[in-house]
Each structure stands twice: as C-alpha cells, then as structure tokens.
C-alpha cells in the first residue's frame, strides 16, 4: 500500500481498498462507517454555519469553550503534588527569602560603612 496513489478519475480496485487489504473484520468496518458518519454530520453542521450568509456571530466551538474555561480556572483543578509543590516553593517562596537576605545584607553593609565613615557619600542632586 505504501506508494499507491489514487488515479484522478478511476475508483480504487477492490483489492486495494484498505478494509480488504488489511483484512478488517465486519464489526471494525461498521464501526469505521459509523465514525465517518458522525464526522460527516459535524462537518455538515460547521459548513452550514460557515456558509450561512445571514450569520453575524461567531461559530461556537465547544472545544474552544472548554479550553478557554480550563485556562481560566486552574485553581479548582489544582492538586498539590511533589512537582507542583516544588515549583511553587522554588518560584514563590525561596526567591522572597533569597531577596530578603540579599537586600538586608547589602543595606546593613552600607549602614556599617556609613557609621564607620568609610563610605564616600558624594553630593548627588537627584537620588
């Protein structure tokens, strides 16, 4: 089947029909036809809405609605696992303490230098 392409005007011979070629059972063939029918129905509904000249609003896509809702409501589905707790701690808790330590030591060092008189405090018009 690998390199076989359809001829533009001829139908496919029976031996090369995928159902025959792969020797699918009748139940599988029926299931495939049912799925194809469902897809065709959905496509028909979409095409009807798309080509409707009086349509003024958006075509509602339920998958998009679900996706937007999921993106907007992460907290209701949140479950603390090891990974999420680690990420939360790493980005939300640890930086605060690291930054507190950094700024406090820097400012204290400056204060000590001012008290010892070693910091050169030039006149600055704007600070």
């Amino acid at each position, binding site marked *: 089947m690998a390199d076989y392409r359809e001829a533009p005007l001829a139908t496919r011979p029976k031996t090369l029909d995928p159902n025959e070629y792969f020797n699918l059972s009748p139940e599988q063939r029926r299931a495939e036809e049912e799925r194809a029918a469902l897809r065709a129905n959905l496509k028909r509904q979409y095409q009807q809405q798309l080509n409707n000249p009086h349509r003024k609003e958006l075509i509602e896509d339920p998958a*998009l609605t679900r996706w937007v809702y999921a*993106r907007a409501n992460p907290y209701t589905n949140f479950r603390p696992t090891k990974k999420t707790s680690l990420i939360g701690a790493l980005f939300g808790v640890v930086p*605060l303490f690291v930054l507190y330590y950094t*700024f406090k030591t820097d400012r204290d060092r400056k204060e000590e230098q001012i008290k010892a008189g070693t910091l050169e405090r030039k006149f600055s018009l704007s600070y």
Partner: protein
Amino acid sequence: MLKILIPTLMLLPLPWLTPKKWLWPTSLMHSMIIALISLYWLKNSSEEGWTTLNPMMGTDPLSTPLLILTCWLLPLMILASQNHMAPEPLSRQRTYISLLSSLQVFLILAFSATEILMFYIMFEATLIPTLIIITRWGNQKERLNAGTYFLFYTLAGSLPLLVALLLLQNSTGTLSMLITPYNDLTLTTSWSHKLWWAGCMIAFLVKMPLYGVHLWLPKAHVEAPIAGSMILAAVLLKLGGYGMMRIMVTLDPLSKEMLFPFIILALWGVIMTGSICLRQTDLKSLIAYSSVSHMGLVAGGILIQTPWGFTGALILMIAHGLASSALFCLANTNYERTHSRTMLLARGLQMIMPLMASWWFTASLANLALPPLPNLMGEIMIISSLFNWSWFTIILTGAGTLITAGYSLYLFLMTQRGPLPQHITALSPSHTREHLLMALHLLPLIMIIAKPALVSGWFA
C-alpha cells in the same frame, strides 16, 4: 474646587432629567466640559504647597495630576459605554451614568481631601459604585466571584487602616495632610509600632495591588464592563499609590526596617506577573496582569521614599492610567465585535482595520515604556532610585523591563499580525466614536512628553 465639584454633583440628576435622544450626548458634553475646566488646576500658584485650599479640600502638585486624570476619564468612560448600553432599557442606562458620576464625585473628593480620614471614607465609598458596575453589568457569571474578591480584599485590608488612622488622630490631635508631614512621631521598632505601620500601609498595598494580594485585580478587571475596567485600571489603583504617598511622610523612621518584605514582593511581582502575561490567552486578563506589573514598580518606587522614587511613581501612575485604559478600550472594540476575549479568535486585525491597528501599536508601545513617552520617564526614575537603594534591584527591574517588552509585543503581534481567522465574517468597521476614544486617551499621553513637569508632583 467647587467649580468642579458642583458641576460633577449636577451630573447625578442630569441623566434622569434629559430626554432619551439627548441622554448620552449631554452627559458626554457635560463631563467633557468639567474635564477641560479641571485643567486649570495645573496652574499651581505655590511651588510646593497647597492651592485652591478650603477647610476640607485642597490640591497640591501630587494630587493635581490624579484629579485631572479622574476628570478626564469620565467622558471617556461615557463614550466607551455607549455601544454596549444601547440595547438596555432607558432607566438602566440612566442608572449606569448616575453610577459613573457618583464614582466620579467620590474620586474627586478622595483626591482633593485634606483630612486623611475623609480620604479613607471616600476610598471606601468608591468601592460601592464599582461593585455595582461589576456585578450588575459584567458579562460572564464569574462576575459575582469577581465582585466578592474585589470587595472583600479591599475591605479586609482597609479596616486596620481605620484603626491606625484613629490612633494617629488620638496621638497627634490632627489628621490634616497639611500638618502630618511635620508630625514628629519617631517610631521605634516595638511590636505595637510595627503593627501600626502595617495597619497604615496594608490597605493601600492591597489596592495597588502588591503581588501577594493581587488576586482580586485580574478577576475584577476581566469581569467588569468597559467603563468599570477603565476606571479600575486608570484611577482606582492610583488611590492606593496616592494614599501610600500621603501617609508615608508620617511613618519615618520605622519605614527603613519595615519596607523590606514589601519591596521584595513588589519587585518579584513585577517579574512573576510579567511572566504570567506571556502565558495568557485571555486579552483582558493579559492587560490586567500588566497593570499589576506596572503597579509593582510604582509600589517599589513609593516605598523607597526618595524624591526620584516619588516623582517616578507619580509619572508612571498617570502614564499607566492612560495607557492601560487605552488598552482596555481596544480590547473592548474586539470584544464588541466577536463577543469573546480569546486572543486566538481575533488575529490579523491589521488587515481589516488598519487605523485601529495604529492605535493598538501606540498603546502597546506605551505599555512597554517606549521613550520619550512618560511611561519610560517614570520607569527610569523608579529604576534609578531603586538602584541607588541597592545594586541588586537592577537585576529584578531589568528582567522586569525585558518581560514587559516581551508581553507588550506579544499582545500587539497576537491581535494585529498573523493569519486572519477565516470563519469570522462579520466584523463591523471601526466606528468614529472608537477612534475618538483612542485619540482622547493617547493624545494627552503624547502631549505629556512635552512638559513632564506637569505630572512630576512635588519635585518638578
């Protein structure tokens, strides 16, 4: 002062007395005339002191830019609401305009108050019209949750403020803003003084919002109708900044020890909310998180308490007010056409609405702090004064600026460039009203480039 306040009070009965045909034009013209008259406040006759002073209200170079921004925003809000209020019944339209006007009255009284307690009462009073606007005229059912978050975050933060202010009144005998800078309190590091300091500041930090307590803002901004989003982003956040600036002058020298956690939260919040912006799919949510990011920088500037910090904070507040409100108006033009806030749905708009694309471009550039716009002036001053405070802040603020540029460009490219969705066939062209709205937002922003001393506050 009364020249502005009495006309604004008259805006309350105005919608109820005008016939239906003239409702929106008259309220628009009335509020526009008030906005133009308010420009005379810019003429500060005493350099660093209070002008237009009476026993209850006054303006000084700090409150003048915020007052003018508030007065300017009311006609813009009325202009923006005209379209989505058109199908509503007449009495509801009148109620809407009355709510906006009452919010305006409270805001003018808040920014011009000379007693800190009056500022507090007006600060709380603005919550009610905003709550009504969000929960009644919002578009999705999440608006109830948004209103609850908005109301209770701000209330819970501001009840300690009431206690702290009454304590200040008892201990110093006055709460007048003319006298509190000269209070000699010399706060120590005892627990009671620390609690008192926290009580004074937390209300304004929640309102600003500070990164840890910012959860109300994306909800409230996203669920509010356009006028609610505009007034929230442009003015109500600045109430927090203004309150902080007014009250910090009395709180020395304890501030030097107490401010570390809040500066850290503010600066880390700049980076974190900026990164969240890069991952957003909802247009208004992106603009709301960018508001948190800019306000974090403002909070950092105010907490530093240096002249450049205050000046930069005030300039950034004004510039961000105009730019953020402009972005919300642009997002609303999208929403009115597609009734969806998803960015994916409204791409490639440059092809079909090129003039609106130029407004999108200018507003995005303002958001990412392009020189010579005042957004950059404010940010540069805050970043410089933070750098003077401690060298390591430049890492945080520099990364924050980078991420800001990233998500502002992402916003622009996502909505304007790219393939036009093929299933959206009925996008009405831009109305002149929308172009007027955008011009009225962005032209003052561009004109401030010429004279930034107008919005620089005390240290012009």
